[in-house]
């Protein structure tokens, strides 16, 4: 019989083995007796037994030979631990809940960050992928993010001529590819329209990435030629789109699709794990870059040396390190930039252009624009949930300490009846491990839920973000780290305290030492400090969010709805677009409930707007940056439709009497150039490459990019006189309910286009709340987390004081018996609690001061230096502490001296 079957037999046939052992012992005794008898010993039976020793002891040690004794002991410890935890339901529930929240929140945020920033792409050897960017950008380049001007450190797109020249350089790379766009296109399959996220890629995209098709083939360089390959434009679809359009059927291959009304043929399906190279941006259809020429006939990207449109990535040649590539790039940049420079560049601009540097950056985790928008939010959230974890762990430590104190007697009894110290320690450890594992399990479940909620909240309805948050080694490593932090933070204190239990101590029920109070007090101070910081942060975010919602957008548009119909894909060709827009405006204005209507190029608060420098007579000394105007095309009636008051002059006249040289400027532009709105009317300015324009009116300031921006100086030009750009938005001011107006407008669109187009419907208020989505998310999370932290701190204070009153009840009883005023006792206990809170607030204030800069970047119209915020937070904490101390203090003052003295 081998080792395992022996032991298994031991485990399952314990009775049989026991019986056998008994028989063996009996046989042994009989033999011994027999021999002793033969030798003539006086009392063989007795002597035999005497020499035998204690059969029970060696029976035990024999048994141990054939059992999993260590495992069995562990199992017994686990059962005992579970029984104890079940008995102490409140304690167990509080610990599990705390850990679930702390671990879950961390796992969730970290999972999202991992998906966005660190998870490597599911391609061949992702570590040798680099992205190619331009740095040392011209100082004249301006860009805005969330309404604030930001200094970009790198440009993630190259011009196509630069990409082409770069890809001809050999030596460093084993292939270089580009991609453009990640937006939604109108795709039609078998007569049904869909909105699909597409990516236009150079022909070698899949080959350089090393992706293998799930079905059919992927794109190849011969697909990416001007005019398309002989068989027509090919497209590769994602596994998800394959399912959506073709139910995973093989008939997908060769199926016809139209993308923005251009015919495509599906040639293959990408593997399910592959969603493109931008984490969070779930590409569903890939087409050759050249197909952009068919889709946008007016966009001459192939030769345009000023259009930065191609995100570029490359694979390093084996043996070439990133540092080597970097060094060699240094020499390449200038000649390449010179070779592909925009011929219109001259003077300083050319100097700036040539001074740019090409750099290769590691891209094993892909390269997503989402990192710009959400990276910082996620880091802040990680810090917040880290604080929550710390609070949770210290809370568990505190509860365990309290429990250990309460169990001193139990432990002492167990020591007294012969349990070894090691056995007791192991028992305590098993209990902690059970709690940690329970918290971990709860945490993982909670994380799953929270991740789903956060993904939805971060992305909003317009552009879904799908990050891969499945478990990988990074996440697992992080979870282990979290577990370690919890175990260390929660475990050391009780272990330290338990190791000091001596039998005599505990049996005599000596009161706990002052050091235990100090230890638990320190934990509570730490918790209170974190609560204070979180609470202050939450107050700041709430105040900031309130300011954002109160901030004037410049529009009075409660009764205005904005519709962006996709007329082109519904059947209106480009040549007929202007006519369709005219008809629609006329028809819309005729509708009963419509007060006014107007076409506009950029809906309010939608983000995008182009800008250019203008020439202003007498203001040529102003630097170009000061002469920058945002440009906006509108039809007449725009200002009344969106509720923008005119400060001077008048609106554009209706189409008949419109002149090409008319323009309207915003109030801030008028003040900057001409002193006042009145003085601006009738003056002339010359925007960029356009002709001189005459100002006919001055409109109040309004915001187009973000609610955070300062009123942008804007120039409005009449829409009808320029060639129509696609994707205009119809703004409609209506009376009464929105629904019937929307229905009537949809019907108009359907009549005009021949069928119902895809229409994006917006309101100014809706856009505003979309814009502040991340702020709102942060506010809600911070508020929830700080409430949680506050609750823990308050219960911690209450628990500690209750325990201390319990320990000191003899002393308090004596004082009461000697005639101390109950009110004085109460006050003393409460002072203790408030002192802890005050210490916590002080520590928290220091932490907050240290974090002030990180906080300020998030805030709007309030700074982290606002004293009332911190006074509020401090007041809330003190009030909570006062409430928490009330019960133990009241109990202390009501102690019956006789009872307490009789206890000993």
């Amino acid at each position: 019989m081998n080792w395992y079957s022996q032991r298994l037999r031991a485990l399952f046939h314990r009775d049989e083995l026991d019986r056998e052992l008994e028989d063996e012992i009996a046989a042994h005794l009989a033999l011994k007796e027999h021999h002793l008898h033969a030798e003539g010993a006086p009392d063989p039976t007795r002597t035999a037994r005497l020499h035998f020793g204690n059969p029970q002891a060696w029976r035990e040690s024999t048994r141990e030979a054939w059992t999993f004794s260590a495992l069995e002991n562990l199992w017994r410890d686990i059962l005992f631990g579970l029984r104890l935890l079940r008995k102490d339901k409140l304690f167990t529930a509080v610990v599990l809940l705390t850990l679930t929240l702390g671990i879950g929140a961390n796992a969730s945020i970290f999972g999202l960050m991992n998906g966005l920033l660190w998870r490597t792409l599911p391609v061949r050897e992702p570590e040798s992928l680099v992205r190619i960017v331009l740095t040392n950008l011209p100082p004249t380049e301006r860009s805005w993010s969330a309404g604030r001007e930001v200094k970009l450190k790198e440009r993630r797109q190259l011009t196509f001529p630069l990409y082409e020249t770069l890809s001809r350089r050999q030596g460093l790379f084993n292939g270089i590819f580009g991609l453009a766009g990640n937006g939604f296109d109108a795709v039609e399959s078998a007569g049904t329209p869909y909105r699909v996220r597409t990516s236009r890629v150079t022909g070698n995209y899949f080959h350089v990435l090393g992706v293998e098709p799930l079905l059919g083939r992927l794109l190849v360089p011969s697909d990416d030629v001007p005019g398309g390959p002989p068989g027509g434009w090919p497209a590769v679809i994602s596994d998800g789109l394959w399912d959506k359009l073709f139910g995973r059927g093989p008939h997908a291959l060769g199926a016809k699709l139209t993308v923005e009304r251009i015919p495509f043929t599906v040639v293959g399906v990408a593997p399910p794990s592959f969603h493109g190279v931008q984490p969070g941006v779930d590409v569903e259809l890939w087409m050759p870059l050249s197909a952009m020429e068919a889709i946008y006939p007016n966009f001459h990207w192939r030769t345009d040396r000023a259009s930065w449109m191609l995100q570029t990535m490359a694979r390093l040649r084996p043996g070439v390190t990133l540092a080597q590539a970097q060094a060699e790039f240094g020499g390449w940049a200038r000649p390449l930039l010179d070779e592909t420079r925009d011929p219109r560049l001259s003077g300083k601009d050319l100097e700036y252009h040539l001074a740019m540097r090409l750099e290769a950056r590691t891209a094993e985790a892909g390269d997503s624009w989402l990192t710009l928008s959400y990276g910082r939010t996620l880091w802040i959230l990680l810090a917040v949930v880290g604080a929550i974890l710390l609070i949770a762990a210290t809370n568990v430590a505190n509860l365990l300490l309290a429990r250990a104190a309460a169990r001193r007697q139990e432990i002492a009894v167990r020591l007294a009846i012969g349990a070894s110290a090691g056995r007791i320690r192991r028992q305590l450890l098993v209990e902690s491990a059970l709690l940690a594992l329970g918290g971990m399990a709860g945490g993982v479940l909670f994380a799953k839920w929270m991740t789903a909620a956060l993904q939805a909240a971060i992305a909003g309805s317009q552009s879904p973000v799908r990050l891969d948050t499945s478990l990988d080694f990074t996440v697992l490593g992080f979870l282990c780290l979290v577990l370690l932090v919890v175990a260390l933070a929660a475990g050391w204190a009780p272990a330290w305290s338990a190791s000091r239990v001596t039998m005599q101590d505990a049996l005599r029920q000596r009161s706990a030492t002052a050091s235990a109070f100090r230890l638990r007090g320190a934990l509570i101070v730490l918790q209170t400090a974190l609560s204070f910081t979180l609470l202050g942060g939450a107050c700041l975010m709430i105040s900031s969010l309130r300011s954002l919602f109160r901030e004037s957008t410049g529009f009075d548009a409660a009764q205005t709805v904005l519709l962006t119909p996709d007329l082109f894909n519904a059947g209106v060709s480009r040549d007929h677009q202007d006519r369709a827009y005219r008809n629609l405006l006329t028809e819309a204005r005729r509708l009963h409930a419509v007060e006014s209507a107007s076409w506009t190029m950029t809906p309010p608060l939608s983000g995008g707007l182009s800008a250019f420098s203008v020439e202003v007579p007498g203001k040529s000394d102003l630097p170009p940056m000061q002469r920058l105007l945002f440009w906006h095309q509108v039809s007449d009636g725009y200002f009344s439709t969106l509720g923008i008051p005119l400060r001077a002059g008048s609106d554009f006249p209706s189409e008949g009497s419109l002149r090409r040289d008319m323009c309207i400027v915003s109030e801030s532009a008028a003040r900057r150039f001409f002193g006042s709105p009145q003085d601006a009317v009738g003056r002339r300015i010359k925007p960029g490459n356009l002709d001189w324009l005459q100002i006919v009116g001055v409109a109040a300031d309004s915001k187009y990019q973000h609610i955070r921006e300062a009123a942008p100086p804007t120039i409005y030009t009449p829409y009808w006189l320029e060639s129509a750009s696609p994707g205009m938005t119809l703004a409609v001011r209506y009376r009464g309910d929105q629904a019937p107006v929307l229905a009537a407008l949809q019907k108009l669109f359907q009549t005009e286009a021949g069928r119902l187009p895809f229409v994006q419907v917006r309101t100014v208020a809706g856009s505003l709340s979309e814009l502040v989505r991340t702020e709102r998310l942060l506010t809600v999370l911070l508020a929830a987390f700080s409430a949680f932290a506050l609750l823990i701190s308050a219960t911690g204070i209450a628990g500690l004081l209750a325990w201390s009153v319990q320990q000191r009840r003899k002393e308090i009883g004596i004082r009461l018996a000697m005639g101390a005023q109950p009110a004085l006792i109460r006050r003393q206990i409460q002072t203790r609690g408030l002192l802890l809170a005050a210490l916590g607030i002080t520590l928290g204030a220091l932490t907050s001061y240290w974090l002030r800069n990180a906080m300020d970047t998030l805030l709007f119209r309030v700074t982290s230096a606002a004293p009332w915020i911190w006074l509020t937070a401090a007041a809330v904490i003190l009030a909570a502490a006062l409430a928490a101390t009330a019960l133990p203090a009241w109990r202390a003052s009501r102690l019956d001296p006789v009872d307490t003295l009789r206890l000993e």
Partner: protein
Amino acid sequence: MGFKSGQLQPGALDLLILTALEDSPAHGYAIMESIWSRSGELFRVEEGALYPALHRLQIKGWLAAEWGLSEANRKAKYYRLTATGRRQLARERAGWDRLALGMRRLLQGE
């Protein structure tokens, strides 16, 4: 007086048991007696050490056991060496011989 099993070198008890069983199978009592007599009444193994060791060696696969009849026509559990046990005995014996040789040289200054 002799040595008790607790005073033996670690591993020595195993070797004693294996040696006692080298020629023929035996039950626990016989093994005890055999060790006592063959060591010239130097080594006395108590039951409290013998039986756990027998069971341990059985689990290791060096011994096998079966019930049989003893000299007094009583039921007794007989242990015998397995092939593995025999190999182990050879190995341990060689080891002990070397150890004993070394010790003797050192102690007697040969």
